[in-house]
């Protein structure tokens, strides 16, 4: 499981960074999205990988890291997803505006 997750994060990051350096705005935004997926998975991984461990306590029960997953990275990832999603949407609008003004989808506004 660790290998799959780390390979996934690595592939997403590498593709994201590569796309980020491309000259087309569409490639840049896809690159940023891939990068944010990688980051979200990474935050999740920082809470250590666990199977079958709930992050919330049951009523009346006591919790511990032996029986429960660390809830904080999961909360963080939720916030990061929301913020990342909003930023991507905003960026998309700006890219469309740029396309409208310059007539090209090059990041510098000219070929």
């Amino acid at each position, binding site marked *: 499981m660790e290998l799959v997750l780390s390979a996934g994060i690595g592939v997403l990051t590498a593709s994201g960074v590569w796309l*980020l350096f491309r000259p087309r*705005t569409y490639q*840049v935004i896809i690159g*940023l999205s891939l*990068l*944010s997926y990688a*980051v979200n998975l*990474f*935050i999740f*991984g*920082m*809470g*250590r990988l666990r199977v079958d461990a709930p992050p919330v306590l049951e009523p009346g029960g006591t919790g511990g890291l032996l029986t429960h997953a660390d809830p*904080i*990275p999961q909360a*963080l990832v939720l*916030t*990061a997803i929301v*913020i*990342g999603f*909003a*930023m*991507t949407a*905003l*960026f998309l609008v*700006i*890219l469309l*505006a*740029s396309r409208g*003004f*310059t007539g090209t989808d090059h*990041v*510098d*506004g000219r070929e």
Partner: protein
Amino acid sequence: MNWFDHLIILPILVPLVTAACLIPVDARNQMLKGVIGFCSTVLVFVIGIALMQAAATPDEGQSGAMVYLLGNWPAPFGITLVLDRLSALMLVLTSLLALATQVFSMARWHRAGYHFHSLFQFMLAGLNGAFLTGDLFNLFVFFEMMLAASYGLLLHGSGPLRVKAGVHYVAINLAASSLFLIGVSLIYGATGTLNMADLALRISTMGPESRMLMETGAALLGIAFLVKAGMWPLGFWLPATYSAATPPVAAIFAILTKVGIYIILRLSLLLFGPDAGTSMGFGQPLLLYGGLLTIGFGTVGVLASQAMGRLAGYCVLVSSGTLMAAIGLGNGAIIGGALYYLVSSTLTICAFFLLIELVERARDAGADVLAVTMEAYGDLDENEEEREEGEAVPGTMAVLGLCFCICALLLSGLPPLSGFLAKFAMLHGLFNPGDLGGQEPVSGAEWTYVGLLILSGLSAMIALNRVGIRTFWTSIEGTIPRVFLIEITPVLVLLSACLFLSFQAGPAMRYMDATAKALADPQNYIGRVTTAPRAGSQGGQ
């Protein structure tokens, strides 16, 4: 817990609520929106002054940090807001800049697009939150809030130039935010906490493996803030972005680079102070050499730029480079002067951005700037003339020229104004470390710093002289710009704040030195946060 403790949350809440309330107000009522926004900022300013006084007043023998537990959970678990001298200073500085730029925008610029005042208030909420927060993840949230609003503000007025600058600005900041998140999660993974004070406690007892992870996280976090502060290889976006933004927006953006500086200052002194074991002074060489390179790059840029907007952008770079290198020197005695420099240079640059627009209205050479404006406005400009309120200022050129001279003195650090005093204070701290710094002789890097500091002042003076002569003395057209009282007043207020700093340099420097002392000895901050009592635990609110 008395009512006064609740004041800490208000600098975040007031702008947030105001911004939300302004959204449904009809866009044709921009003036009403502006006045409401202005009132909210005045309120935050007054609260900021009160908090600053509270932070500076010694209580129980020592002036300490005030802690506000949001949600009433004890410190390492819940969300904490912490107010100390440094954050109070930044709050007051931010709201002062906000007041000036808001008034300036009400003359014409706030009509160039929708929701200017809402975005402005959202940005203030984010800024104040970033200054007040006591843990890293909320820092991220407030930072993103500030950035999201700044994207909107940068695009205010639209036009191809701004959209192009916006694409670059947003892309760079989104990538930097990813680094920020990776850094935060690495630090959490290595230490198990996000509370800054708790983090400072845990760093001293970390094992070597997790210490390495933590340092990697801190480095990534630092890069995110250095992008914001515009350190040399990361700051190429800055002059283009700042000169493309509408003048009031560029003026308030002067504080955004200082957010990066503020957080680097806070974290490097809190986390990597003398108690940090082998991590002590982590990242300082990078900050020092990066800062020196930034000053060098900014200096060359100042000399090379033709348009005044770009010149001001490079002045921003010089200012943040100076501060980064000052932090990187790791000499406690210099920090007091650096804080004084931070306040003085931010006020000056803000005033300069506002002044540029007024001056360039007269110049035909600034036609490129005007062209952008015309494009943005379309045909609006003709109706604009009649709608503008207020009277034109008499002797416009004289007033503008005087303001320009004061700006030039402040930016180049010539006596007798605060720009000079700030540099003098830093150099004094460098050569007389006293009990805060080391006792070693002045090193090569420090001499380079001294040289660059003076050289950057010289280059600013040359560049501003050139621009000033071209604008005020050899102006061929002889057209006098129409400047309204509501536009020149903010510039005058900002410049008189600098004059006030110069004449009251004694008390101001005492405040800054006390701030530097408190930063150099973070035990008080850590103690206050980790032992903050929950409301109700002492019986009664």
